[in-house]
């Protein structure tokens, strides 16, 4: 049937319009009902359905001449009593689900006006079920009954509707199409009516297809062809009885009922004997031909609808078989390839095909043959005392409900044999052309309004567990428990005497091996060599002695030493969500890492970061995870006394950049702010003094502390756009990292202090406050008068930001630190040519993820360009 919208029958239109208008108004009114009011209505409807279950069953049988009256009574009970018991405590009004762990609630919204089709096979139970489901979910429902069952369907609708009205339901929330020759036309009309919100189609294939072709949202059902595998471990007596109960239920009209059995050879004989003993008839090959001739419609290859719901004796009589009176089921052996067997299709009558198999694999495959012969997504069954077999079967078969050791028809209805949702409408998923594979019920008749609250961000603060501070703290090495140490360092540290200082303090009973082959910015190859060295020597402790490169390398070497299968490329995968990374690092490191910085810059001794160069691909990979944190950091300024002035300055500006960027980071918090501010104060105070008197250990100590504090700040709040620019510049023109940072600093502060062209979409950063944070730094550093009452005044904020910029420029000028790219000796034309490539690098840089301003590509370009000429500040 194809839905037509061209009907000129005005009487049909008028009737359809009236029904739909009535339902529309009722749906509108229903939105005001409380859960208590709804539940009262549902209860009244259920009582009415139970009181009339037998009468309606009798009426349905008389009208349709299908099935068994007694079974139809049970179906009516399933649709009312069983269904009610399942849904009576379910919330369907207001907040229906609270999900505290997701900080979210779900609120129901009725679907509206539902056009419900009722099938000839279950004309009253379907109506009872759908009416109660619609009432519970505050929907209006218009029933379109099957023409051959319209009187009984409509009687069921009338009974539950009147009960609902008495309990306070909105007038007209249940209605029905009266039996007439135009019933189908009216249904077609309503299927495309703009005021119908949903079609709930339970019925024949044509009606379901018509519903889907209407363009409306539709809940349909698929056709069934239930395979049931009987494994050799099954209990013969109960299996036979369950199958008989199921297949004879309402003379097989239930679509989940068994259609073909797949029986293990070991159990076939006793099972068939049991069937025979209990009153089933097993056909000879010749009789199978006769049964097939009447059961299957030769024109369609499908079942003969004339015999749907008829008794086994009636089918036998039609087939010319002489079977005993009250025969329960006609069992037909299916010989040959069942994929071509005419009986291997749906037969809604007490006729059951069977095939015998020799293994589980063959059994499942034959079941799949049945399943995929018109029954995908619907129902299947397995009888087995071996759970593994049941699971293998369920894994292979495509069915919305796979019943284990129970009847598939009554089992499929839910509630009687299991805890499936009670239904008279079997969703079959995409296998059956449906949107759901559920036992369709109230949950499918509500719209779900999800109300997520903003994510609650919880910050954690991670840093190195033991930090030993003060000149002379290297002595703490003596107390660290270690049996075999691998000292990772540079030739420079060796020359400056640092290595000797370390070796003197390692416990005498500790075996020591030294590797001093780590240069500046090590690449994979350098790392691999060091890993080979530590693997050869073995160690329970790695002592990293040097600048940021050595400390970073040590973290990676430890990772690969402890976990040789770790994939650095995979672990360096970029990420957006700091709190929910896709990549998982090993939880715990096995080897202790002692980090001893000899420069005052990166703060790597207290950060979870490590950078490694991928020389082949000309890029740097960043590894970030708290497991990378060293266990011990020794901040001994005696090791920095001989640091050359140029490196002292570069690294100090690196630390200053860390402090400034972490202060305005989207992940900044009270913990990191304190560290960042104090770090800045120490740098402003100590750097000029260190440069005047490089061997003054007190000022060196202050600067060393500043770098460590800034390291803790970035270790938890990360950095920002300045680092992204510096990484790109450094990689392209081989500029030391601290110097590369300093040339962008004035531009990026000014950039971040302006109202962003685009705000960052981060839940924990609800208000852009970068400018105020810079102003706060200016106040903290004593650059401006701290007048709290006016501190947030825009002009005051701007003046404070300007003061900060000037202070940084003055610091750079007084210490000789370059503040523009041109001062680095980079050729302007070459620089301009490199800008697009550098912009591409910054876009991918992890640093920008925590910048307080959403950085756009054209803005990166502008930042590169404006950072070239000498600063005029």
């Amino acid at each position: 049937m194809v839905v037509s919208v061209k009907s000129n029958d005005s009487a049909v239109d008028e009737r359809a319009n009236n029904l739909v208008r009535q339902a529309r108004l009722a749906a509108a009114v229903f939105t005001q009902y409380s859960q208590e009011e709804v539940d009262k209505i549902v209860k009244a409807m259920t009582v009415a359905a139970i009181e009339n279950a037998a009468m309606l069953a009798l009426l349905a049988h008389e009208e349709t001449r299908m099935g068994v009256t007694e079974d139809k009574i049970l179906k009516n009970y399933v649709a009312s009593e069983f269904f009610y018991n399942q849904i009576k405590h379910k919330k369907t009004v207001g907040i229906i689900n609270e999900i505290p762990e997701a900080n979210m609630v779900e609120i129901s919204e009725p679907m509206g006006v539902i056009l419900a089709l009722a099938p000839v096979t279950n004309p009253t139970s379907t109506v009872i079920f759908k009416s109660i489901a619609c009432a519970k979910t505050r929907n209006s429902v218009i029933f379109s009954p099957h023409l051959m069952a319209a009187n009984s369907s409509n009687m069921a609708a009338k009974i539950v509707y009147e009960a609902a009205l008495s309990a306070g339901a909105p007038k007209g929330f249940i209605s029905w199409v009266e039996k007439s020759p135009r019933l189908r036309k009216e249904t077609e009309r309503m299927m495309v009516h703009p005021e119908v919100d949903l079609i709930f189609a339970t019925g024949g294939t044509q009606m379901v297809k018509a519903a889907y072709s209407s363009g409306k949202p539709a809940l349909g059902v698929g056709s069934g062809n239930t395979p049931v595998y009987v494994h050799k471990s099954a209990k013969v007596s109960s299996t036979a009885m369950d199958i008989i109960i199921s297949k004879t239920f309402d003379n097989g009209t239930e679509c989940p009922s068994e259609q073909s059995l797949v029986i293990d050879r070991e159990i076939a004989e006793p099972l068939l004997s049991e069937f025979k003993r209990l009153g089933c008839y097993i056909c000879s090959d010749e009789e199978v031909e006769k049964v097939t001739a009447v059961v299957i419609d030769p024109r369609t290859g499908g079942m003969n609808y004339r015999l749907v719901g008829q008794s086994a004796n009636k089918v036998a009589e039609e087939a010319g078989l002489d079977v005993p009176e009250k025969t329960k089921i006609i069992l037909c052996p299916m010989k040959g390839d069942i994929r071509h067997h005419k009986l291997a299709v749906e037969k809604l009558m007490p006729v059951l095909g069977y095939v015998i198999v020799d293994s589980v694999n063959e059994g499942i495959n034959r079941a799949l043959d049945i399943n995929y012969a018109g029954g995908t997504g619907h129902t299947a069954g397995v009888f087995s005392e071996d759970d593994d077999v049941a699971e293998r079967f369920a894994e292979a078969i495509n069915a919305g409900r796979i019943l284990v050791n129970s009847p598939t028809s009554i089992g499929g209805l839910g509630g009687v044999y299991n805890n499936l949702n009670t239904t008279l409408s079997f969703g079959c998923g995409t296998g059956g052309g449906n949107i759901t594979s559920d036992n369709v019920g109230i949950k499918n008749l509500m719209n779900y309004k999800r109300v997520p609250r903003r994510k609650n961000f919880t910050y954690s603060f991670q840093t190195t567990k033991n930090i030993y501070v003060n000149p002379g703290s290297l002595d703490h090495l003596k107390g660290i428990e270690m049996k075999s140490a691998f000292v990772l360092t540079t030739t420079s540290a060796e020359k400056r005497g640092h290595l000797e200082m370390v070796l003197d303090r390692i416990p005498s009973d500790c075996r020591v091996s030294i590797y001093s082959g780590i240069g500046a910015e090590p690449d994979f190859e350098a790392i691999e060599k060091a890993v080979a060295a530590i693997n050869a020597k073995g160690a329970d402790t790695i002592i990293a002695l040097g600048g940021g490169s050595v400390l970073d390398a040590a973290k990676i070497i430890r990772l690969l030493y402890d976990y040789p299968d770790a994939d650095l490329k995979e672990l360096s995968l970029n990420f957006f969500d700091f709190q929910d990374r896709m990549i998982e690092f090993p939880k715990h490191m096995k080897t202790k890492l002692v980090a001893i910085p000899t420069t005052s810059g990166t703060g790597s001794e207290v950060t979870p970061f490590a950078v490694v160069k991928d020389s082949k691909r000309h890029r740097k990979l960043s590894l970030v995870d708290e497991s990378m944190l060293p266990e011990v950091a020794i901040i001994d300024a005696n090791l920095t006394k001989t640091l050359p002035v140029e490196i002292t300055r570069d690294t100090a500006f690196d630390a200053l950049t860390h402090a400034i960027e972490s202060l305005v980071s989207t992940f900044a918090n009270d913990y990191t702010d304190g560290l960042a501010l104090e770090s800045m104060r120490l740098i402003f105070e100590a750097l000029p003094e260190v440069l005047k008197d490089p061997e003054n250990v007190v000022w060196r100590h202050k600067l060393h502390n500043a770098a460590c504090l800034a390291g803790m700040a970035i270790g938890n709040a990360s950095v920002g756009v300045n680092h992204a620019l510096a990484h790109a510049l450094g990689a392209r023109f081989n500029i030391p990292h601290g110097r590369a940072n300093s040339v962008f600093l004035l531009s990026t502060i000014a950039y971040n202090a302006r109202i962003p062209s685009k705000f960052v979409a981060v839940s924990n950063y609800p208000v852009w406050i970068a400018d105020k944070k810079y102003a706060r730094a200016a106040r903290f550093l004593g650059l401006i008068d701290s007048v709290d009452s006016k501190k947030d005044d825009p002009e005051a904020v701007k003046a404070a930001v300007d003061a900060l910029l000037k202070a940084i420029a003055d610091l750079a000028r007084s210490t000789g630190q370059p503040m523009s790219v041109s001062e680095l000796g980079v050729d302007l034309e070459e620089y301009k040519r490199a800008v697009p490539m550098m912009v591409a690098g910054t876009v991918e840089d992890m640093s920008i993820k925590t910048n307080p301003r959403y950085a756009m590509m054209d803005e990166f370009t502008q930042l590169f360009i404006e950072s070239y000429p000498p600063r005029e500040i």
Partner: protein
Amino acid sequence: MAKAKGKTEPVRILGSLDKGKDDVDRLVAASESDIILDFSACTFISVDGIEWLEELAIRAESKGMKVRFENIPPAIYKVFKISHIDCILKACGAPSTAIGPVC
């Protein structure tokens, strides 16, 4: 109550509007000025209530008068929105949705 002529006073709908209000019907019959219904104290509206409002609006329109709804609580306004009755939506000052629900 609305006056027969001159300035229009709003008519308050109190509690549940589950059937027609005779006094309002009489008012429409007697009045020549626009009718204003104040829904601020309306707690529920039934199908009969909706149908009465529709009829009221149609009758008023036939007399060249207008009906206006004021202070409509969201729950009642939602009923009007879902009902898709043009003259009621017009009385609410909302655009007509005669063509039915559209995206």
